[in-house]
Structure formats: structure tokens, C-alpha cells
């Protein structure tokens, strides 16, 4: 279980301090699939970075399974069972897909075992295992590999920052199935996803709406989702196109 207690985070820009996260308290229970949504710029990605240790809160406490991890490093948190999928997957020169999956698993996996993780994200492993994790891969491919590394790491709390960002809708349709699979096999772990996609919100146990750095709604999918449909916090592929077109027409 992960608890955030009165977390605030601010940055200095142009000599002015700006609060990005304002006194956020929330709990991610075990065995739950939780989605954080809300408007762009509302602080969602920052909150994910605070959870995994990439950013340090200005004030407040982060508790993982009863232990205060506020001052723990990224590495320590990873070793304690946190996984994190970047919104924009990182590229490397010379590091292959197999290398990265092995590093994630923390052991010398056989290529066959590594392939299982790639197959789980819908990739034909044979075609990819020796490819370098660099710009020669498409956005959708990098995203899948990113998710495969989180699967290979095997975390008790996996955080995914906007898995839909930067990939085409066709790839995303396939990715949804990956998350549906994770949802079914969630035993002894929790999943936290930052997303705007209605299809991801639809498989959530709980939804948290973060807006202007504050939690404005939190509850079960049944309670929260109906109020979000049609807003930018919950969009389907098609309505996104319609909304954008509509916006331009005005």
C-alpha cells in the first residue's frame, strides 16, 4: 500500500515560486488498479515522479507498506518494489532490447524468457530482441518495450505515466489489451496509471482526478467516471477527433 500524506511540490521559475502539487493526500491500496486523470498541466506526471523518487517533495511524506520512503533514492525505491514506465521512453545507444529486459529482471534471463515479456506486450520477440533501444524503433515499439521492462522487473507497485502518449491509436488499441491482462493478473501488486483514455478509466478500480495540483475527486470507477465522460479527463479516440474538429470550427 502506498500513502501520500500532505505532499506539496513547487519549483522556482523566473524568480517566482510555483506550486505544482498542493497538499495532496491519497492512498493506493494493494491489489487495485488505480487511474489518475485530469486536465493537462494538473500535476499528474509530477505526482508520478514524486512517487518513484525522480522528484523530491517540498513537504509531506510518502509511505510504502508502512515505511517512510520520502528520503529514499530512485534506486532504493526500485529495490523496494516500485516500477515506473516513462511517458517518453528513454533511448540508448548500443543497449539492445535483450540487455534492457535483462537489466530490468535483475538477472541473466535466457533470450527465451526475455521473449515472454515482449510477447506479453504484443511484440514478436524474435524480430526485436537484438535491436538497439534507439531512434530506429517507432514510438509504439519503444512504448511496448518500456512496458515490457516494467513487467520484467516485477513490481509490487507499477506506475505508468500516460501509456497512450506519443503512439498512434491503432497501437494504443493493442496496448489496452496489455493493461486488461495486467488488471486480471494483479495479485499482490497495485497498478497506478496516469491516463486520459476512457478505455483505461473503464478498467480502473479507483479513479483519482487531479486538477491544478489538487485532488478534486477520488472514488470508485462507478462513482467518478460518469462525471468525467465528455470532458478532457476521459476521452475516446473518436471523440478526441470530434472535439478537436469542433473546436476548430468555432
Amino acid at each position, binding site marked *: 500500500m502506498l500513502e501520500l500524506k500532505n505532499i506539496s511540490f513547487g519549483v522556482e521559475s523566473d524568480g517566482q515560486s510555483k506550486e505544482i502539487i498542493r497538499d495532496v493526500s491519497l492512498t493506493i491500496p494493494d491489489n487495485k488498479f488505480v487511474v489518475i486523470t485530469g486536465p493537462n498541466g494538473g500535476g499528474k506526471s509530477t505526482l508520478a515522479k514524486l512517487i518513484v523518487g525522480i522528484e523530491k517533495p517540498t513537504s509531506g511524506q510518502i509511505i510504502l507498506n508502512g515505511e517512510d520512503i520520502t528520503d529514499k533514492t*530512485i534506486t532504493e525505491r526500485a529495490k523496494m518494489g516500485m516500477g515506473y514506465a*516513462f511517458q517518453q521512453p528513454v533511448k540508448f*545507444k548500443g543497449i539492445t532490447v535483450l540487455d534492457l529486459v535483462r537489466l*530490468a529482471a535483475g538477472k541473466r534471463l535466457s533470450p527465451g524468457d526475455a521473449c515472454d515479456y515482449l510477447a506479453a506486450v504484443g511484440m514478436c520477440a524474435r524480430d526485436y530482441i537484438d535491436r538497439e533501444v534507439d531512434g530506429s524503433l517507432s514510438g509504439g515499439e519503444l512504448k511496448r518495450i518500456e512496458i515490457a521492462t516494467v513487467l520484467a522487473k516485477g513490481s509490487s507497485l507499477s506506475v505508468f505515466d500516460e501509456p497512450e502518449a506519443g503512439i498512434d491509436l491503432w497501437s494504443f488499441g493493442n496496448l489496452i489489451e496489455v493493461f486488461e491482462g495486467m488488471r486480471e493478473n494483479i495479485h499482490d501488486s497495485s497498478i497506478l496509471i496516469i491516463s486520459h483514455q476512457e478505455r483505461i478509466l473503464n478498467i480502473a478500480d479507483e479513479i483519482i482526478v487531479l486538477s491544478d495540483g489538487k485532488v478534486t475527486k477520488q472514488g470508485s470507477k462507478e462513482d467518478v467516471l460518469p462525471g468525467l465522460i465528455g470532458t478532457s479527463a476521459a476521452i475516446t479516440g473518436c471523440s478526441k477527433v470530434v472535439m478537436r474538429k469542433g473546436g476548430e470550427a468555432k
Partner: protein
Amino acid sequence: MIQLDEIQKRLLMEVADLHKVPEGAFNIRSNGESAGRQSSANIEIIPKDNGSGLDIRIKPGTKNESVHIPVVMTKSGLTEVVYNDFYIGEGADVTIVAGCGIDNCGPKDSEHDGIHRFFIEKNASVKYVEKHYGSGEGTGKRILNPGTEVYMDEGSYAEMEMVQIKGVDDTNRKTTANLKAGAKLIVRERLMTHGEQRAISLYDVTLDGEGASADVVSRSVARDNSYQEFEAKIIGNAPCHGHTECDSIIMDNGRILAVPGLEANNVDAELFHEAAIGKIAGEQLTKLMTLGLTEAEAEEQIINGFLK
């Protein structure tokens, strides 16, 4: 054959991946003298009359054979210049493994300057691997100054892998190549310097014939207080294709100078240069740390991959 000691054996393994006497043609040079030599039916290794090096003659049409000519030095204060000439006959397809390992435990500088000339005849194909390695706790420097000249006849192919990852204090490398019509040269250089080391690498590639092509790519890492210079010049005198790339990571107080040089003397010459120098991207470290690696482990993995 002279018996090699453990240090010499270790050096041989580092520079030529040799655990024992290689199959095929070879010459092992140890502390300035031959510690073993063998020619094969198709590959002749002949000492030059004046003792300054070797002539390696590969018969036309020789296929899938290899030549190993590693050099090891374990005496402090030894300085040598060696001239080896490779004559690769028409249509041959061979692998040549060179390399030099210096273990210097003494106070004097040890230096090996290997000048290798390659005469690659029509439609011949060569894969050349050269590894440099230094070890030893002595205060004397380990110095390697390789000179490589490549003369490529029509339709020939050469792939050269030059690796210097550890322990060489001072290097001045100069590689020149001259390509006739349809010849293709590929160079992959990997270099890491640390401590107070200094490495200079200059390439001068002339594309003289129609359809000649060259691809010279260097990947390097400069750590501690080390310094590197990479200068790659490609001259296109015919309809040809040339590409050079220098991709470098700097760490600590490392310094790198990359100098591109392209000269087109024919309107159909296509020449490209790319260069990038920078420290390890923070997000690469962060990604590996989220997988449970420490910052130092992440750094090591990123550099290993980069120089692989």
C-alpha cells in the same frame, strides 16, 4: 617457439582473444622478437630482410582463412617500430587480427609503433581487427602509435575494427586510405581514455574511383582528465559516397576535440559528417535507476553498451 609467461598470455587474450596458439597463419611478437610463427598453404608470413617487420602474402582466391599477428610487451623501457605489409590477393576473403598489449611495471616508457600497410587487390575482402590494451602499475607510460595505410583496388572491401578501451597512456593514430572504383571501406573505432591519457586519431580517406564508398564511425568515452582528438577527413574525387561520424561521451574533466573534414572535388561526390559530444543523458541514468541499478551501475551499463 618461446615460452610465454602468464602476463604475456593474459595480454594475448586481451588483444587477440587467443587462449592458445591460433589455427592458421600467425606471428606472435613478444618483447621485440618473434615468439612463434606459422605460415599456411595460402598465407605466407615472411620476415623483412632488414628485420623491421613482416610481409604477409595472401594468395588470390584464399577464402575464410585468418592471420593473427599480436604483439605483447612486458619489458619496461622497450621502444620499437614495426612495419608489416599485407598483400591480399585478388578475390581473397580473409580475417586479420592484430593488436598490441603492453604491461609496463617499470619506471620507463614502453612504446610500440606499428605501421601496417594493406594492399588489397581487386574484389578481395578483408576484415581487420586491432585491439590495444595496457596494464601494469609502473610509472612508465604505455605508448602506442599505430599507422595504417590502406590501398584498395577496384571492387575490394575492407572492414576495420579498431578498439582501445583500457590502459594505453598515449596514442597517436593515423589512418589513410585510398579507394578505387567500387571499393568499400568501413571503419569502426571504439576508444575509451581515462586518468591523464591522451589519444589522437586522424583519418584521411580518398575516394578516387566511381562508386567508391567509405563509412568511418568513432564512438569514444573520455573520463577523468583525459583528452581525445578525432579528425576525420574524406576527399571525394569521383562520384562516390562518404560518411564520417564521431559520437562521444565526456565524463569528469574529460575533453574531446572533433574536427570534421569533407572535400568534394566532383559534383557527384556525396559526403556527410556527423559529430556529437556530450555527457551521459540524465534520463538514461534515471531509467536504469528505476530498474534498481545504482547510479554507478547505470553509468557502467550505458558506457558498456555505447562502446560495444
